[in-house]
């Protein structure tokens, strides 16, 4: 049928205009795109404090510009319910596509094996989002400050990489710089304490300042968690000689199980003179906090610091953004003072400084093996760990990026530091939930005005063998849970033939080496079991 010239051409023109208008609308307004054209993925984590959600939001916004076909939703889950949330969603098949996980989450050791997918092969290739940067030709795994060492340490299968990390964290002293100037006055000789003895002297000056001001000022803001972090670090730093003794296997590193096994095999205890001397220093530090700090939460310590009632708060660099943004005074970041060989309390067995900075990276995200959009999830994983996204994350979160080549803001330089000390692990205060309970519940006997080292040791020593056994049993059970699913994986890989032979071999090695630890643990539990 031949259309009359005027009506036909007008109709065609209207159609063309409508088509072009619709196309313009679709291309320029994301919201106008039909949902089925957009792949939606979810990324879940527990870092809901100031900083990380902003950092990730900036990364997601930039990613949306690059990949309008993929929409990323950030799922913020409070830490106190994270484990239950994670387990429930993974079992129910409703887990997010990318999930933050840490091997330190109690009772969750089987989760990576069961629910996460390794990305090792991809890690050996360059990250395409690093094109045009100095990392362009660098294998993805080597674009992280630590070459993903920490992830290798925690991998459920030796040789396999499961995750990418976003940040680096260290423990630091955050200082009210204005108050510090008021305390030290114009003393030209003052320099920030490097040794424990210098820290003690500053504590004396702080007390004098408080008296002058007629108000209470503590040297350290007090709360249970902040105290635990500080005390565990200081115990590790002071007892490096015991760390060396416990390194039976010559690995120059002790894991929590080494402290448990060492204790159950009578290689250390709280009765040792050097351990008691170190506990004496913990008593000194506890006296620098407000009484009853064991009952207080992290927020209480932050509030105490923010309101000028404490000169320092000891916490991780994960709190840096909150403290710097919210404090009404300049906040400085400093390394912990450490004892030296001249220290009157613990110098006699001093070996060297403990590492308070690590290249280790954290905030690790894993790929859900049952996720419906793995390709999109992997693409976002690549982008969020690219140099561009690392910089965006650091600039918007205030957290140190895990990615090489990112530019550190000057304010965060002391938070990063250099790994210039011994790093041999630590587990004197807690090697699991039960030991933490025994130590912390009795801390008042160490810290209280009527207490002391002797009372504290007399209280905890009878309870510690049982607590350490319980923690070691828990670790063994968790390891067993992680090892079980590997058997079916191994049979499957071997049946898949040469293509999977390498992976099958690596899995067999990984499983065997982990099992040797499991049976060592069981042997120690058997030999140390209480006699009826």
């Amino acid at each position, binding site marked *: 049928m031949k259309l009359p010239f005027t009506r036909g051409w007008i109709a065609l023109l209207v159609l063309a205009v409508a088509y072009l208008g619709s196309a313009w609308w679709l291309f320029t307004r994301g919201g106008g795109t039909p949902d089925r054209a957009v792949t939606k993925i979810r990324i879940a984590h527990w870092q809901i404090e100031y900083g990380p959600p902003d950092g990730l939001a900036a990364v997601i916004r930039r990613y949306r510009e690059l990949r309008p076909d993929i929409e990323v939703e950030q799922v913020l889950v409070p830490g106190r319910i994270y484990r239950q949330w994670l387990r429930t969603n993974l079992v129910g098949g409703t887990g997010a596509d990318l999930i933050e996980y840490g091997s330190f989450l109690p009772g969750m050791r089987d989760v990576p*094996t*069961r*629910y996460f997918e390794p990305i090792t092969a991809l890690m050996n290739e360059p990250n395409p989002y690093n094109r045009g940067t100095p990392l362009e030709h660098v294998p993805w795994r080597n674009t992280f*400050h*630590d*070459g993903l*060492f920490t992830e*290798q*340490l925690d*991998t459920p299968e*030796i*040789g396999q990489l499961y995750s990418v990390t976003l940040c680096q964290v260290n423990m630091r002293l955050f200082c009210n710089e204005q108050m510090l100037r008021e305390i030290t006055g114009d003393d030209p000789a003052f320099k920030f304490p490097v040794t424990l003895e210098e820290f003690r002297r500053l504590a004396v000056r702080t007390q004098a300042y408080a008296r002058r001001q007629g108000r209470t000022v503590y040297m350290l803001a007090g709360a249970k968690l902040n105290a635990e972090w500080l005390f565990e670090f200081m115990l590790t730093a002071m007892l490096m000689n015991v760390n060396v003794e416990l*390194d*039976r*296997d*010559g*690995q*120059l*590193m002790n894991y929590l199980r080494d402290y448990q096994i060492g204790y159950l095999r009578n290689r250390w205890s709280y009765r040792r003179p050097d351990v008691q001397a170190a506990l004496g220093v913990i008593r000194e530090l506890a006296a620098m906090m407000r009484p009853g700090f064991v009952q207080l939460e992290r927020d209480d310590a932050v509030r105490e610091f923010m309101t000028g009632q404490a000169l320092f708060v000891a916490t991780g660099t994960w709190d840096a953004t909150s403290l710097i943004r919210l404090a009404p005074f300049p906040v400085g970041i400093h390394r912990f003072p450490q004892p030296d060989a001249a220290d009157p309390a613990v110098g006699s067995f001093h*070996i*060297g400084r403990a*590492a308070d900075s*690590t*290249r*280790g990276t954290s905030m690790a995200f894993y790929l859900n*093996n*049952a996720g419906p959009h793995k390709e999109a999830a992997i693409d976002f994983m690549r982008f969020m760990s690219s140099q561009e996204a690392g910089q965006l994350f650091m600039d918007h979160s205030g957290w140190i990026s895990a990615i090489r080549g990112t530019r550190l803001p000057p304010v965060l330089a002391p938070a990063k530091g250099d*790994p210039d*000390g*011994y*790093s*041999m692990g630590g587990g004197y205060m807690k090697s699991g939930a039960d030991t933490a309970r025994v130590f912390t519940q009795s801390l008042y006997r160490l810290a209280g005005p009527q207490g002391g080292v002797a009372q504290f040791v007399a209280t905890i020593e009878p309870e510690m063998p049982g607590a350490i056994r319980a923690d070691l049993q828990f670790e063994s059970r968790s390891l*067993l849970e992680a*090892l*079980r*699913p590997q*058997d*079916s*994986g191994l*049979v*499957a*890989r*071997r*049946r*898949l033939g040469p293509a*999977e032979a390498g992976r099958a*071999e*690596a899995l*067999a*090695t*990984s499983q*065997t*080496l982990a*099992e*040797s630890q499991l*049976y*060592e643990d*069981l*042997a120690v539990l*058997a030999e140390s079991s209480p006699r009826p």
Partner: protein
Amino acid sequence: MQGVPRGFSLTHFFPLLLLLVLPARANDSLAGTWQLLAGNLPGEAAAALTTTTSADPRERALAEAVVLVARQPLTDARLLEAERRLNALAAESDEVGAAALYLAGRLHQLHFSTPDYAVAAGYFRRLAERQPASPWAQLGLVKLALLTLHVLPEPAGPAARIAAVEALLPRVTRPPLRRDLLIVLGRARLFHNLEPDRARANLLAADAIGGLTGLAAADVTLQIGELCFRAGDDARAREYLQRFMAENEADPRVFTVQQRLRAMATRKGTL
């Protein structure tokens, strides 16, 4: 087309291609099940098995038994059923039978709510006697060594346990498994505080086989270096510690290793 007879076209090859494709399809379908099991998706693997019709019946039966072991929630009753099926498969001395015997041993070693190490050891011994060269038998010997070193009631005493495992060593001939057994043996010597020189020799022999990657490789390199340092073998200690430094730049132990090397330079260090 050179080499093709006149009057012959590609269509003449279709029946032959069909013959090649059909068995490949059968394998592919079971390969899909194994892929899902390898990815720890046993529920999906079970579903895939229901739609697979053209697989080898023994291979299929093995896959079904593995699905039984892998699916949650796991019960001892289901494991008993898996063991029954695995024993039926183990009646034949092929690779499926070897895998079945190995897995039956593993059920008693790791999976049942109450392990029975003696029964597990019995499966591994039977497999090693029946099919000694099978990769499953070789791996079973490594697992038998672990049980012997730490949890079986006999032989009693660390020295006797280590001697019993030394006796297993010549039977493990596949290099990666022999390497793993040497590491396990060396570490057991350190664990029992027996013969550190021989522990070092075990680790050196494992390193000579090679093939370890990642942290496992780093640990063995560092252990050899440190044990040599402790024994006063500075030349070898230096060799291994320097190798560790070169290969593990981001390892937090690098600082300690640097101190070790410095101490060797003066031989005054105590850490």
